């Protein structure tokens, strides 16, 4: 049997004439395997891991001594095309549960779609959205990313926050957790975020390997 130089596709020699059916079967299986591999790569490019959450109803207002935490899970998912191990669950955007299902470079974003005081406003009081990605290690927890948005509110206006960032996730992707919360300094009254006012998304960009084809 002969083979092509690069992809090693089989073709018969003259003395293999009697074995043509077997060789044809092997050729067909080789072609199929290579096409399926290409299809998998293209599918991953066209359909990278993405999850989008929009927060549920937040009935409770919170004071300047408290915080409002993001707990976005299955009921809040607007769109998701991946699950996380080990139990094939939906990804969660909160301090417990897993967010990533693969190592590589990920792009994440958070938005708070309006936050406002329920009563009087303390002039120049802050509103702070903080997002931290951390990884559990044998020595405790290692902070990977700290980001957020701080607003100094002059009046009782509705405030909007957005932040986004990229992160390199290693092979221990199941050890990463995300902690997002809002605090404020409005002592004159409590603050509230409207129902469905929390929005978050993640998208995998690709692996961190050096590219082979420019």
């Amino acid at each position: 049997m002969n083979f092509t130089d690069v992809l090693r596709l089989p073709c018969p020699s003259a003395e293999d004439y009697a074995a043509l059916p077997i060789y044809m079967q092997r050729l067909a299986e080789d072609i199929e395997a290579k096409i399926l591999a290409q299809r998998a790569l293209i599918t991953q490019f066209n359909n990278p891991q993405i999850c989008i959450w929009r927060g549920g109803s937040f009935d409770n207002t919170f004071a300047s001594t408290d915080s409002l935490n993001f707990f976005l899970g299955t009921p809040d998912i607007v769109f998701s095309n991946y699950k996380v191990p080990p139990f094939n669950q939906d990804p969660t955007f909160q301090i417990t549960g897993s967010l990533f299902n693969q190592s590589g470079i990920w792009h994440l974003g958070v938005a708070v779609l309006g936050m406002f005081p329920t009563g009087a406003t303390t002039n120049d009081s802050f509103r702070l959205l903080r997002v931290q990605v951390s990884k559990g290690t044998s020595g405790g927890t290692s902070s990977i990313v700290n980001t957020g948005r701080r607003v100094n509110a002059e009046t009782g206006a509705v405030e909007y926050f957005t932040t986004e960032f990229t992160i390199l996730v290693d092979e221990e992707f199941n050890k990463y957790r995300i902690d997002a919360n809002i605090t404020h300094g409005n002592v004159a009254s409590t603050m509230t975020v409207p129902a469905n006012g929390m929005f978050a998304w993640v998208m995998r960009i690709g692996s961190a390997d050096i590219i082979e084809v420019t």
Partner: protein
Amino acid sequence: MVATTSLGLEYQVGTDRPCDAPGVWCDFVDTLESLLIPLNDSVARLRPAVPAAKAKLITPFTIPLNTSFGLPLPFDSVEFDTDNMIDLTSSRYEIKPNRLGTYVCLGTMKGTANPGNNSHVQLFINTCDFNLDPFVSGAGFCGFYDSSSPIDALATYYWRSTHRLNWDGTFTFGPSLFVSTPTAIALTISEATLTLYWVGD
């Protein structure tokens, strides 16, 4: 008489001699290989890795008062770089793509700012070629920015700016990160990042 498909794949027809089949077969797989290799290369451009790089400034960096036009941030570390886009030994101010195409640019910054009489600090991504020197001024600058809310208290603030870049390879320098501060604000940056990743030709 050997026939071919529109892509040039050889096959036998009924009038061909069966004993010629091995030769036709080998012509077939040679042609098939020549078709699959470019397809493999094309697919390999998309996954598993695409050009993506993230430069960081993690050494505390102070922006002087009244840097009204802007100061470029000197990166000191690399978080990831899949296409040799960052070379801190030759330039600490840029990420320069190698593959042509469209890129997402994302800049982030975290820093401590003093009370500034309700003034703003701005973080820019400069996507224009700064020709000879990253310390550009006036006409050499174009950017897309994020502005902090009025800074009324000493605290840690966060900025982020995003932009799409069409990189055609004609620029001498790649995108950079700029910070502009008004008269009354002193800013100490604890971390700044610039990410570029390719999304298409």
